[in-house]
């Protein structure tokens, strides 16, 4: 009887959890004049100390804004990075002064380009376990965001590798 009760309780809890509104993830988050959409990251190899986060930001306002920082419980710290290829050399650096989102523009953070850099990883993103985080913009302020987790090496959020 006690076991049954425990199971019932767990089942109820699971149902409740499923019914609770989740933070917006693959969908959109609005913060001020900005729309942040399709945030995703991917599974990292075991022992990885860094991971990339990707998303799109659309500025529906009349003034430019800047993505200046972020946080996530999975990372010791988060930076906004740019990756470029220069004659076969991969270069990565922090975007000085933050990433500008011009009025009317949509900026895509994606593999091989701009990304949110999760550094000093405490635990790597795992499939089926969306990663929480925040992003801070110069004007629009801070918003909570959820990164969906794609498989190892995925090049886009929708489908897996290749």
């Amino acid at each position, binding site marked *: 009887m006690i076991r049954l009760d425990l199971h019932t309780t767990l089942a109820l809890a699971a149902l409740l959890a499923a019914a609770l509104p989740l933070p917006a993830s693959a969908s959109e988050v609005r913060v001020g004049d900005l729309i942040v959409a399709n945030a995703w990251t991917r599974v990292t*190899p*075991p022992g990885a100390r*860094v991971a*990339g986060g990707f998303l799109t930001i659309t500025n529906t306002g009349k003034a430019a804004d800047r993505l200046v920082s972020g946080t996530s419980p999975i990372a010791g710290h988060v930076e906004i990075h740019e990756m470029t290829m220069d004659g076969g*050399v*991969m270069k990565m650096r*922090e975007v000085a002064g933050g990433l500008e989102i011009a009025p009317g523009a949509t900026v895509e953070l994606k593999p091989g380009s701009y990304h949110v850099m999760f550094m000093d990883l405490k635990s790597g993103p795992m499939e089926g376990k969306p990663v929480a985080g925040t992003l801070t913009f110069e004007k629009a302020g801070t918003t909570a965001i959820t990164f969906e987790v794609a498989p190892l*090496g995925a090049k886009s959020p929708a489908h897996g590798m*290749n």
Partner: protein
Amino acid sequence: MANTRQGALRSVRLVAWAAIAVLVLAAGMHLLGEAQKAQQSGRALPGAATIGGPFELTRTDGTRFSSSALAGKPYAIFFGFTHCPDICPTTLLEMSNHLKELGDRADKLRVLFVSVDPERDTPEHLKRYLSAFDDRIIGLTGTTQEVAAIGKSYRVFFEKVPSKDGQDYTMNHTASVYLMDKAGSLVSTLSFQEPDEQRQKKIENLLDR
């Protein structure tokens, strides 16, 4: 009469110019085609002889690895580091997929991943990291001097980029995969930016040599 002759001369000149234009165009296309064919069929690239050379590094199980173990075998070699968010895990995954795609022929190819960050990429750490990928990929690290030496002989660029607070660093590095033939000469390179099928074809051409 004079008009007709002039007209004929003009026609001849026009035809001559057209012929020259066609020849120039054909020569250019031929050259382009040759360069492309060299890449795809795996003939040696210009200047390829100066890339590569003997090296000694440490495998992920702590044993030593000498380039002499590669004698007579074609191999793919690329350079990276595990504190890399994008291109290194992507390339490792792509190489894993290529090996799988090769089926039995994969036995003919050696795949080497060399860390350019030996300070952080210890053999143990590299072993754990590479466990997510095809176990035929040979992970190599070494002393700073050993890594500098192989970087120099393969003309691989790498540099540390310190973070703002100076507490951390990332690395810029050559991202290409070098395809080396059984004589140890560079045959072609793979880029993560080219289509999977094209990379696969280059690898198969290497094995066909």
